[in-house]
């Protein structure tokens, strides 16, 4: 499937700031499930830093926007040829040991409820266990936008019983690690067809490491494994570590958070219909 992405993020500052620094994980890497046809990242008024691939195979690049800056526009446009590999990640050049993904971060730290959820799933065989955990998470956390925010932890989301894809992914990661399975957070895009029930176009899911098979993706939010509708951008220990854009402003007045709005349009190249979503959130 050939997917076309147009993703715009706009940051606004209440008062002009001295400069903005961003670190991007915004360019997909080639692997068996995806091949980049063309891809471009633009930052309004931005100076690109050196591009590189990190040990997890992600394409990274720093950007700086010299000030005074009131608004920064990040636009990502590109085309990716995707293929269904039943969620199995193959052909990605990465050197990070899966063992690194057994470490918890504050966002994935376990509590009694997470422990109970993880323990409640049977499965001697690792792959079945992973599927079981994903299903259990989907059941325990209902999809409801606005219930949680960017800094909500896995434990908090589970206690709440609702959340968005970020929460689903982090709860699943926490459970998998409790069962001794390396697990990580993946950010990317999801194309949803008309008949499907799309959750978010800018999407996130989890990958669990299965010995012998490697990394396998699980999307509890959509109760499936990533297929040809998914574009994978990058991974990390949690949402923050895997964020497509991390940024800070210099000389920002501390009290005023920057407002950002995001529009993501993903369409299949062969099809005429486009699907657009807009969401607003704020970044501290």
């Amino acid at each position: 499937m050939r997917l076309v992405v147009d993703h715009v993020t706009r940051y606004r500052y209440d008062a002009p700031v001295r400069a903005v620094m961003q670190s991007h994980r915004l360019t997909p890497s080639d692997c068996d499930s995806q091949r980049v046809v063309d891809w471009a990242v633009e930052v309004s008024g931005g100076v690109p830093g050196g591009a590189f691939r990190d040990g997890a195979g992600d394409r990274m690049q720093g950007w700086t926007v010299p000030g005074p800056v009131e608004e920064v526009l990040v636009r990502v446009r590109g085309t990716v040829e995707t293929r269904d590999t039943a969620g199995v990640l193959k052909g990605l050049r990465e050197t990070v040991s899966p063992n690194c993904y057994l470490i918890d971060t504050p966002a994935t730290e376990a509590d009694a409820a997470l422990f109970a959820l993880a323990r409640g799933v049977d499965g001697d065989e690792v792959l079945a266990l992973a599927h079981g955990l994903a299903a259990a998470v989907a059941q325990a956390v209902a999809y409801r936008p606005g219930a949680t925010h960017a800094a909500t932890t896995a434990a908090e989301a589970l206690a709440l019983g609702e959340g968005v894809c970020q929460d689903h992914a982090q709860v699943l990661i926490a459970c998998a690690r409790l069962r001794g399975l390396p697990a990580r957070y993946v950010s990317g895009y999801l194309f949803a067809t008309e008949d499907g029930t799309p959750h978010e176009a800018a999407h996130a899911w989890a990958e669990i490491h299965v010995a012998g098979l490697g990394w396998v993706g699980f999307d509890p939010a959509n109760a499936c494994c990533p297929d040809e509708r998914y574009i994978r951008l990058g991974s990390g220990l949690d949402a923050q570590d895997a964020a497509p854009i991390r940024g800070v402003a210099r000389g920002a007045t501390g009290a005023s958070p920057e407002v950002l709005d995001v529009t993501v349009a993903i369409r299949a190249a062969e099809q005429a219909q486009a699907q657009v979503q807009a969401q607003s959130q704020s970044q501290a």
Partner: protein
Amino acid sequence: MLTGYFDEMHGKSGGKAAEVRAPYAKLKNWVQAMPVDLRTLKQAEAETLFRRIGITFAVYGEGGDPDRLIPFDMFPRVFSGAEWARLEKGIKQRARALNAFLVDVYGRGEIVRAGRIPARLVYQNAAYEKACVGFVPPKGVYSHIVGIDIVRTGPDEFFVLEDNCRTPSGVSYMLENREIMMRMFPDLFRENRIEPVDSYPEKLRRTLASVAPAKCKGEPTVVILTPGHFNSAYYEHSFLADLMGVELVEGQDLFVEGEYVWMRTTEGPKRVDVIYRRIDDSYLDPLCFRPDSMLGVPGLMDVYRSGGVSICSAPGAGVADDKAVYTYVPEMVRFYLGEEPLLNNVPTWQCGKADDQKYVLEHLEELVVKEVHGSGGYGMLVGPKASQAQIEAFRAKLREHPGNYIAQPTLALSTVPSFVEEGVAPRHVDLRPYCLVGERVELVPGGLTRVALTEGSLVVNSSQGGGVKDTWVLAE
């Protein structure tokens, strides 16, 4: 009188005046010829000199005077040329192995694959930086200044207590101690042929410049990055910057733009090629590590990983000096260098292992127990010196988090005569030499000798009442 210890001047058990080992021969007359009042005078003079140059050491958690001096003991610690040659070989060997280990574990991890060290110890280590995997720093060096803490128990018995691969401190004392001894006792330096140490700052500068990124053409700009003037080691940071002729910067003095890091100067931005940082990994860059860090430089890690700047020590170097990884350093020497280690480790029990834990709990009275991530002599139990209550309190902590602790036998640390109130008496010492690793591996002949000034004490940390001595290596 301490007995049962090797005294570096008198040999076994501090056998008084019976014999004097060769390196100390000329110090015997010096000490005998010095009347008490002259010694008092000299001691006061030394303190004045230290105060004037401003060398002080604020002690964590102790409060009190932030301008406190570390006590300086005028009685030098002496190595013969031959003793030093042996030590030097062992230190360099260890520094090479530690760096080879770091390049390996951030690359293919052969030593883990070969089963020579448990994967968990490396990859689940808090000091392991996933963000640095796949990046090889210039010249393949992660730890550019390796401080190795060494103790001695006999004429030929040296043990490594721990390695410091991040930013070992204290080298300013090595340099200042020498400076002050030469000013106060020039005759001693005429009578003894003592190898100089004052080339250290220049060697350090050369080492740092030698690992400039490939993108840097011409003479690299080196800076020292300090957490700021409230840091207890600020004096050392400014001292080294001054002697190397480089700028001492704080995070706010640097910024990232495009592919490089720049320094804010009165003439506009100046490009920086090598950063000798004295701040922890987690504070380096809020875009990569702790988002709340105010000490670092946003975007630094992206520039670093795309080859625009070098960071010394490289982020992630701390995984090699972890106290649990320490046990495996001799294995690293064999694995990477194909050599037998010239310096021994102290036998160590890992309390995370069931058998070891059992042994440790049964022998707390005779062991030294340390926190794996602790430093500065805190969170430490010296069994033979501890009260029963302290031992029991420690036993409880250890049972709760056994993985946080390692234990070692109480070593019979060597003693060196020291000036104390009653006169001259033996006091326990250790040694921290500073090995530089860049284009080449080098070591100035000397180091920092720390001395436990309290009679019988084995804790040499400055935060626990330790002092320092000038350390001599005699020219052969």
